[in-house]
């Protein structure tokens, strides 16, 4: 559903149309030296000419003379926090004087949210989270409530970071599905494409010009170039057999000597879903709230059962993470749990690189 060309000066019209449709818009903005999604009312707040430099354990922004708003790759946040909240109260129990207990669910406010600038890797991760939280035997109503009201404006990547490897996982850099609108960013504006009926309703309100062959040609060329520029990659799209055949590989010990077991990789990973639940009682004991919070397989408590911890050391925890993400994820969801966003590489304090570890342990595995 090719819609047309939107000159950069008119990008505010997109935000206005979304506001009119009842959405709160969040979009990329520079905060504390990183690009994060925050409430976006004025297009002027977009990070014009901002470019990122990423490497193992490194993330840095610099400004350029480019007029573009989206010439950066992923920041620390994906779409995950908008749907699977880092912390949320799930239900409340109230106990009366006679000891009777009443349970009431606490649902998130039904906010209509539009995300501007979603990347292909994050849309692929969203599909995996949908699969996990919505399509099993039990659907998660908290995730579902937010998912229902999400509107996605994707921007195809033209500036992958050095840490990006979505071309090797097959998830990017072009967004191919699950968006409402997708944008190709050119120097003077945007090629606008609608991906859903809601998307078409918004694009119909934009002052679009017909696109030209030249514009389409440049967009196509930039996308191909973006894929070609990626230097990292996984040795295969399915590493399950080779990883599980190498559970005693000396590299696990080697990575454990570097890994801090801090869990940053799991916090930034857009597909990690682990969380813990706990109860907090009001001081006057009138009610108690049951909340959940992101958790990580790198913590001691994650695998605790009375009297023992299943994964007592870092070697076992890193091995759990990698064999799950790149291996047993195939059994659960029919694909790898890695969408090639590279966040775990950039945000690891000691710069451990998932592609390098995968290659060291499973490098012999076939190619896909």
């Amino acid at each position, binding site marked *: 559903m090719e819609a047309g060309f939107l000159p950069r000066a008119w990008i505010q019209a997109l935000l206005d149309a979304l506001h009119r449709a009842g959405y709160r818009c969040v979009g990329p903005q520079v905060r504390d030296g990183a690009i994060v999604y925050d409430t976006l009312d004025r297009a002027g707040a977009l990070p014009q000419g901002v470019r990122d430099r990423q490497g193992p354990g490194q993330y840095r922004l610099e400004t350029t003379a480019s007029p573009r708003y989206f010439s950066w790759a992923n920041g620390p946040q994906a779409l995950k926090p908008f749907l699977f909240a880092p912390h949320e109260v*799930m*239900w409340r*129990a109230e*106990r009366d004087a006679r*000891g*009777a*207990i*009443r*349970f009431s*669910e606490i649902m998130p406010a039904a906010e209509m949210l539009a995300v501007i600038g979603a990347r292909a890797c994050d849309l692929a991760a969203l599909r995996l989270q949908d699969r*996990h*939280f919505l399509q*099993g*035997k*039990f*659907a*998660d*109503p908290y995730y*579902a409530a937010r998912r229902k009201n999400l509107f996605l404006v994707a921007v195809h990547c033209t500036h992958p970071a050095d840490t990006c490897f979505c071309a090797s996982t097959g998830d990017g850099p072009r967004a191919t599905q699950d968006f409402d609108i997708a944008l190709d960013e050119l120097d003077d504006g945007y090629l606008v494409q609608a991906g859903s009926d809601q998307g078409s309703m918004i694009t119909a309100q934009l002052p679009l010009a017909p696109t030209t062959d030249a514009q389409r040609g440049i967009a196509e060329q930039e996308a191909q170039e973006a894929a070609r520029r990626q230097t990292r990659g996984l040795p295969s799209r399915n590493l399950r057999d080779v990883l*599980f055949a190498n*559970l005693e590989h000396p590299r696990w010990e080697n990575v454990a000597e570097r890994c801090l077991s801090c869990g940053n990789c799991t916090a930034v990973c857009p597909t990690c*879903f*682990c*969380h*813990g*639940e*706990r*109860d907090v*009682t009001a001081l006057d*004991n009138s009610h*108690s709230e*049951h909340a*959940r919070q992101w*958790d990580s*397989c790198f913590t001691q*408590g*994650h*695998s*605790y*059962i*009375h*009297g023992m911890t*299943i*994964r007592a050391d870092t*070697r*076992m*925890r890193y*091995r*759990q993470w990698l*064999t*799950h993400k790149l*291996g*047993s*994820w*195939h*059994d*659960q969801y029919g694909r790898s749990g890695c969408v090639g966003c590279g966040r775990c590489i950039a945000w690891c304090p000691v710069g451990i690189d998932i592609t390098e570890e995968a290659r060291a342990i499973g490098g012999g595995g076939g190619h896909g």
Partner: protein
Amino acid sequence: MVNAALPHEIEVVERIQESPTIFTLRLRFTDPVQHAAFRFEPGQFNMLYLYGVGEVPISIVSDPEDEKLFDHTIRVVGRVTRGLGQLKARDRLGMRGPYGRGWPLKQAEGHDVMIITGGLGCAPVVSVINYVIRRRDRFRRLIIMQGVKHSDDLIWRSQYSQWSKLRDTQVLVAADVGVALWPWHIGRVTELFDQVEFDPSQAMIMMCGPQGMMRVAVDHLLRRGVTEDHIHLSMERNMHCAVGHCGHCQYGGKFVCQDGPVFSYAEARPLFGIQGF
């Protein structure tokens, strides 16, 4: 959309002290309509919620056809189980469930049923023993093997003696340490395999206990010619959500809360006994 995270109010009808640290709660929903709709299979578990303290996974030990009450036998080990242990008749708590996959009892019909447990009050299998005894004609021999560390740890002692008197039933109990008048074996329960009379080609094995014990038992059974898909084990992992969302019970490509806790050995084998999984 049904919210599987939300508990329902239940009440304690009766509390039975089984041993100094093990007790049984006999329970029902306070809402009779909910109670009437409640169905489960032996080997499945519920999440019990103690007001203000938290939730824990606990197996259901009563008979699935008992429509009046359902029972949980619980050992006091930590925060939540200690609090549950202080409940009395008429106290209220929360419950959601049943969850997981239970024992293959339909598949076991027409077979010798062998139940092997190690450790204190291995609750999940007591439900199977009672289930088989109440439907005795559907099964062939019944073999009950229970190992405990200390002879004082054996709960339901008189029941073991009664079971051993039933026809086509063999009861083998062992304690690593036994006191005077302990009528059974002193040592490991797995040392008793040579005494077991059963047909390896027609047996269904169900076991629960420490992984080390299960490992020895599995090796012995495979040597006797039992096939991997006739050996079933109940696994224990940390659990929070019980519905396959929180990741705590991850076991390779499986969630113990959903795909288990009962697995055939064929399913569990790839990672069974490997430290860290």
